[in-house]
């Protein structure tokens, strides 16, 4: 197969930080190459280098038969969709397409042919007069793709095209891109979702700017054949069992996957005694290795795991009953109803996830439950307090960790803790003992005097969690806590959250990440402002088991639920 892009010892630095180091790879025509890795791995830098937006510092880069120095020769043959799709939100779908057609100097005949094809292809034809800013995430994504495909590129570069988009649109996009690959276009698809890597024809796995692995996904996971198992977990103490399993010498990786424990064994190791681990009668079922399993095994070989100290919480589990209750929670922004009668309850010590695409209304729901936004209708109780009446009291019982961590980058770790303990009204001995607790429990002693801004991501995450827990809250709110971090960091984070939940802390998580949702005890699926389903991840998956799909993923379940919901609404509209 001819290579569309050839990278040889490619390197790129920004100031003192190396974004890419010594990357050598080839990207073939007529196939989808997954550019896989966590945030900050160098995916965007690599795409920008190929697109000609950056020039390499080291090594050579050949794109469509031309060296990187001769950009003008290939610019017309590259379709590039940046993150957030690069659309003009004030322009309609048609105007966005017109602009691209003008820029690519398409004449009237070519224009009408391309517009018709692409609009039909993406299903956007009925909406051409709608402003791009008013489209859903999935539609924006398709329009971005249509713009990139307009000049019939030979090379299509997609920077995280599926981030934050609902799984149904994500599948639609895969279908379109797959068709394009069939016509001989070389496609590079960058993603932080590891499950997407398995659908690619080949992949480049980046971590910290270096190429960790590449090749066919099947070959990558094949190495783990016979080493991956699922074990049913007991109803209680699942997190403790997971921790014990993870510490066994023969186990490379142990994660909770719904009601099951997923084990990845180290090379040449035998399955440990399952009955001893979980209880009599437990069985280990072999399962297909995933891309993530292979990635984690590879990372573990490089970075031995940090033993995550278990967080001891001193907060007494709240009295039996309900930790969080949302009743018909509704929020309007002008004419737009962002959240429509969302109701759910969360028990103390439970991990509940609000799962949905960007713009579905999960953040709005979340803000109403934290007391940051007043509902238009409905009520919310958190830790026994009505948010409508006693917002301040409720806030004292809530810990909040935002996706961006909200730390003060120019303050030291200790100063951040000191500041947040002051904000939460801690004083005297309690204050100093809680700060000491946070430094010890989150293993921050070595970095206590460094600026928070200079810390690696994993430390920032720990510090942010420590800050959120200083006042011993009964309820912890987490906003996409581990999106885009590497799988080891995600494991470490969730093992702490699991321990907290066992100590009686109730946890509410929002996410658009299927992988993150697997860690939750129960989920609420949020779609178009409504909660269309709730239940345990396993129960959701069980509903969609078919002969063709014996082991449906959470995404399969999500897509199924969206279809059911849409069909129901259409039925209701027809009646």
């Amino acid at each position, binding site marked *: 197969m001819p290579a569309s892009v050839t990278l040889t010892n490619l390197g790129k630095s920004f100031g003192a930080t190396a974004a890419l180091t010594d990357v050598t790879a080839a990207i073939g025509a007529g196939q989808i190459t997954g550019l896989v890795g966590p945030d900050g791995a160098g995916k965007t830098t690599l795409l920008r280098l190929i697109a000609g937006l950056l020039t390499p510092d080291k090594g050579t880069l050949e794109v469509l038969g031309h060296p990187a120095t001769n950009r003008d020769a290939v*610019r017309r043959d590259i379709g590039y969709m940046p993150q957030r799709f690069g659309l003009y939100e004030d322009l309609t779908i048609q105007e966005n397409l*017109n602009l691209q057609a*003008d820029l690519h100097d398409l004449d009237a005949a070519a224009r009408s042919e391309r517009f018709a094809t692409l609009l039909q292809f993406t299903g956007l034809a009925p909406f051409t007069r709608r402003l791009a800013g008013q489209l859903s995430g999935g539609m924006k994504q398709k329009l971005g793709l249509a713009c990139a495909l307009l000049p019939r590129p030979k090379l299509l570069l997609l920077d995280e095209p599926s981030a934050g988009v609902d799984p149904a649109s994500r599948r639609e996009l895969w279908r379109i891109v797959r068709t394009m690959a069939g016509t001989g276009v070389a496609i590079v698809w960058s993603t932080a979702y590891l499950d997407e890597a398995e659908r690619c024809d080949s992949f480049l796995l980046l971590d910290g700017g270096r190429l960790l692995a590449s090749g066919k996904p099947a070959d990558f996971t094949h190495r783990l054949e016979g080493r991956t198992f699922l074990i049913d977990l007991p109803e209680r103490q699942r997190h403790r069992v997971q921790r014990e399993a993870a510490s066994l010498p023969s186990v490379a990786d142990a994660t909770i996957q719904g009601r099951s424990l997923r084990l990845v064994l180290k090379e040449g190791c035998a399955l440990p005694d399952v009955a001893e681990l979980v209880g009599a009668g437990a069985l280990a079922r072999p399962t297909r290795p995933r891309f993530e399993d292979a990635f984690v095994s590879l990372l573990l070989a490089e970075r031995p795991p940090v033993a995550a100290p278990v967080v001891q919480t001193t907060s007494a589990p709240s009295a039996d009953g309900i930790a969080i209750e949302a009743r018909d929670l509704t929020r309007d922004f002008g004419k737009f109803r962002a959240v429509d009668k969302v109701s759910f309850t969360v028990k103390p010590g439970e991990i509940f996830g609000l799962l949905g695409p960007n713009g579905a209304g999960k953040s709005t729901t979340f803000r109403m439950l934290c007391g940051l936004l007043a509902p238009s209708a409905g009520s919310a109780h958190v830790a026994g307090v009505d948010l409508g009446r006693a917002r301040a009291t409720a806030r004292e019982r809530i810990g909040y960790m935002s996706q961006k961590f909200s730390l003060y980058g120019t303050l030291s770790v200790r100063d951040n803790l000191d500041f947040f303990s002051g904000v939460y009204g801690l004083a005297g001995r309690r204050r100093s003992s809680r700060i000491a607790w946070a430094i010890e429990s989150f293993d921050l002693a070595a970095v206590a005097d460094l600026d928070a801004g200079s810390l690696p991501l994993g430390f920032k995450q720990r510090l942010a969690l420590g800050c959120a827990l200083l006042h011993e809250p009964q309820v912890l709110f987490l906003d996409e806590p581990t999106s885009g971090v590497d799988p080891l960091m995600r494991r470490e984070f969730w093992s702490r959250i699991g321990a907290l939940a066992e100590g009686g802390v109730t946890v509410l998580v929002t996410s658009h990440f299927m992988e993150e949702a697997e860690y939750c005890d129960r989920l609420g699926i949020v779609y178009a402002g409504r909660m269309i389903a709730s239940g345990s991840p396993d129960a959701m998956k069980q509903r969609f088991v078919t002969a063709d799909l014996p082991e449906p993923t959470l995404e399969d379940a999500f897509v199924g639920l969206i279809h059911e919901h849409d069909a129901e609404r259409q039925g209701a509209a027809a009646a």
Partner: protein
Amino acid sequence: MTSARTFFRRFGGLLRKEFVQIVRDPSSIAIALVMPVVLLLLIGFGISLDARNVRFGIVDENRSVESAGLFQAFANTPYFRPFSFLTSRAAEAALMRDDIAGFVVLRSDFSRRVADPIRAADIAIVVNGVDANNARIVTGYAQGVVATWLLGHRRDRAQPALAPITVENRYWFNPEIRSTNFIVPGLIAMVMTMIGALLTALVVAREWERGTMEAMLASPASMTEILLGKLVAYFVLGLGGLGVSVFIGLVVFEVPFRGSAEVLIAVSSVFLIVSLAMGLLISTVARSQFVAAQLAFLVTFMPALILSGLMFDIESMPRWVQAVTTVFPARYFVSSLQTLFLAGTVWPVLLPNLAMLVGFAVLFLALAIARTRRSLE
């Protein structure tokens, strides 16, 4: 090599996009057309270097026809509103309360001294000196009122004037010495600096924020075409802002216009390109609209207010500050506008200014294009 047809199709597309965005997003229109109105009215009416209707005390210890005549003289000028006081103490108290800006004291022998052809009439003038500039103006005006009245009074009595020669002042270009005539053209220059830089700086920063700039850079359009599209679109909008500003100057502030309209448009166009290019240059360092706005204010508004000769005379600045003023383009435009409005089309003044502005336009544009090209790095 790009053919002319290709260029016009691409450029036309970019230009159309800019205009659609201007129409759909009212923030640009607000900056170009509403901001000049607000700024000109606020600052134009707020800053006045003239004394008008100044509340002024007359301490009349003399109570004569003469002292009453002087009171009347103060009342008859548009500059003062006189208030009569019986004692200096009362006037001092009023000054303390800031009820009056100052007072004159006419002593009990005032009428006798006025009648004396040899000796000068002793009049004490007390002025609130907190605002030194204002105090000087008030003092000058008060002296003027007294001197004029004294001259007229003695002439009426056929007494010889004390001074054999009287100086008659004539103020060229601004015979009424209205400071508004001088300030408003400068203000127009300041407003144009600001809106020009703000428009492009914000719009480009918005493209970076929304990720559309990256998509543009990856397209076949060249940097020059992208920036030229912005320049042309916002040039048209900026000319609208200029029209609004000139209209307010002529109609609301009644500033005379003695130059030629064509030259005004020509000089302003060049200056508009300078400030739009300045905005583009700002956008190469500021990737967020917030930072862009801050920077635009800092590099345009402040120098245009302080270092352009609008508020403070450049000739009376220390030498090194004078040197600093030469690198801010607003200075040349302020001088051009003041000349065009108050003096006329005086080429010896306008030509060097115009030459400097053209130089700045070329320099800023070249820098903006060169810097944006590398800006993803």
